[in-house]
């Protein structure tokens, strides 16, 4: 068993990773609550944004800041476009159908990424990664700080937004009942558009941070973020703060397994396994199962 010393750097990694898991989870929960769509293309959108940023910097010689902005905007625009095009026709369908349709988007993006950027391995290093400070003996870089801080900030901000702003209240109402909300004069399409855009921007940001923290690889980023669905699921797709905590937990377990040699190779299973166990545990209590006929 490695000593406490060995674990310290991985706590930092884990918290940073956890922050981005939470960020993604929150992005997905907000969209799910407002539109009933679990966007399984969340990670693919972010990954493609990160690839575009990489190309803008390395091939086109754009300034880094603008390239990163482009990544975040790409996330927002693609997600919004998908939501506007396919949200309404699928609105009345089962949540499962809506989620499967987003897999279509994920495939389109995966295919495009593999086509355009498959020639060689790339890595994304944000400038903030090169600067850091020491906490005790552990070097902490600013990307890690951003990951954690953004995760917390987005959670707090989103929670406040949903609670106190007019648009946020409309989103919460939509989550309860679409028809009644529409009948009350809430512009449903506009509110949904806002949710798609907001969630999309978060996917861009998450893609950028993950590409730095984990690596710039289309498939990894796509499916890693799906495991932050796990965080969202543990929150039963409702509570944002539980999503935050679950995201942190997944990030920490993933990172802390690294120094333990016997399981370190399997550590990437952590998000999936935690999500599975959490889902099964929740199902024991009947909260997720179909109410037996009656509701």
């Amino acid at each position, binding site marked *: 068993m490695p000593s406490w010393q060995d674990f310290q750097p991985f706590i930092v990694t884990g918290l940073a990773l956890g922050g981005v898991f939470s960020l993604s989870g929150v992005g997905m929960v907000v969209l799910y609550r407002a539109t009933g769509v679990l966007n399984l293309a969340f990670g693919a959108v972010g990954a493609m944004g990160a690839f575009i940023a990489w190309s803008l910097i390395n091939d086109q010689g754009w300034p880094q800041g603008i390239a990163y902005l482009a990544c975040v905007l790409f996330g927002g625009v693609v997600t919004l476009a998908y939501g506007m095009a396919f949200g309404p026709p699928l609105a009345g369908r089962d949540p499962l159908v809506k989620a499967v349709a987003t897999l279509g988007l994920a495939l389109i993006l995966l295919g495009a990424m593999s086509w355009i950027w498959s020639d060689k391995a790339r890595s994304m290093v944000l400038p903030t990664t090169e600067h850091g400070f020491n906490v005790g003996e552990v070097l902490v870089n600013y990307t890690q700080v951003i990951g954690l801080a953004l995760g917390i900030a987005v959670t707090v901000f989103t929670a406040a937004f949903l609670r106190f702003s007019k648009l946020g209240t409309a989103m919460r109402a939509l989550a309860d009942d679409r028809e009644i909300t529409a009948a009350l004069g809430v512009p449903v399409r506009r509110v949904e558009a806002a949710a798609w855009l907001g969630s999309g921007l978060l996917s861009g940001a998450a893609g950028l941070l993950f590409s730095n923290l984990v690596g710039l690889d289309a498939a990894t980023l796509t499916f890693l973020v799906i495991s932050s669905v796990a965080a969202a699921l543990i929150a039963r797709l409702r509570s944002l703060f539980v999503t935050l905590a679950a995201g942190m937990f997944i990030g920490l377990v993933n990172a802390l397994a690294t120094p333990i040699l016997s399981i370190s190779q399997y550590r990437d299973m952590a998000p999936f396994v935690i999500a599975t166990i959490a889902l099964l545990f929740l199902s024991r209590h009947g909260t997720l199962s179909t109410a*037996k*006929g*009656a*509701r």
Partner: protein
Amino acid sequence: MITITDLTVRFGGVTPLDGVTVTFESGTCGLIGPNGAGKTTFFNVLSGFVTPASGSIEAFGEDLLAKTHFRRARWGLRRTFQTEQAIEELTVANNVGMVLDHAHDSGGGSRNEEIVRAMDFVGLDVAPEAKVQTLGARQRRLVEVARAIVGQPKVVLLDEPAAGLPDEETAHLGRVIQSIPQHTGALVILVDHDMSLVSACCETTSVLDFGRLIASGPTAHVLRDPDVMRAYLGTEEVDVGDEQGEVVR
């Protein structure tokens, strides 16, 4: 005979059934009440789709609540649904015969004889091989009723079987419902808003209002009960839509 004692159901803050104690003796019994009175919830409890907060149900000497939903069906508790639920992609014969397959209830004769007998009994004049999706609303209803009475049912719950049917069809269905007890020996409980159907079919009728039993007894007597009339007149104009605990599928 079914004896229900102190049956209470709670969904969150709502109490769709509140301490209902009632006995259904034999033959065809009516169960009526305004929208939202708890009739469908009552059926869902009997079928095992809803677990009551308290109370007991004894049917023909068996503790019904001790059985899970599908075992109740195999035991002989059959039902139809408010929104008709015949399985579209199966044939009429397979719809009607499904209970026999799963209940291992061979009835009196062979499986196919039982199916045809049930179809004839309800007056279903279509080929057994016809797919249900090709049938009209009336025939689908009859498929569902045939599925509920095939083999050896002990209790048959009919949830607004005549909803949406024209008058002459309702009259036919009424004759069918009336003769189920004699034909199969089962106890029938009929929920319907059509009072003429209920009075025609049921010797006894029970009335629910806001989850409570407000009257029970011979149908003619119950329908003249001032409490019952008040319950109906008080709410008839205010149609609250779907009932609590309705199976919406």
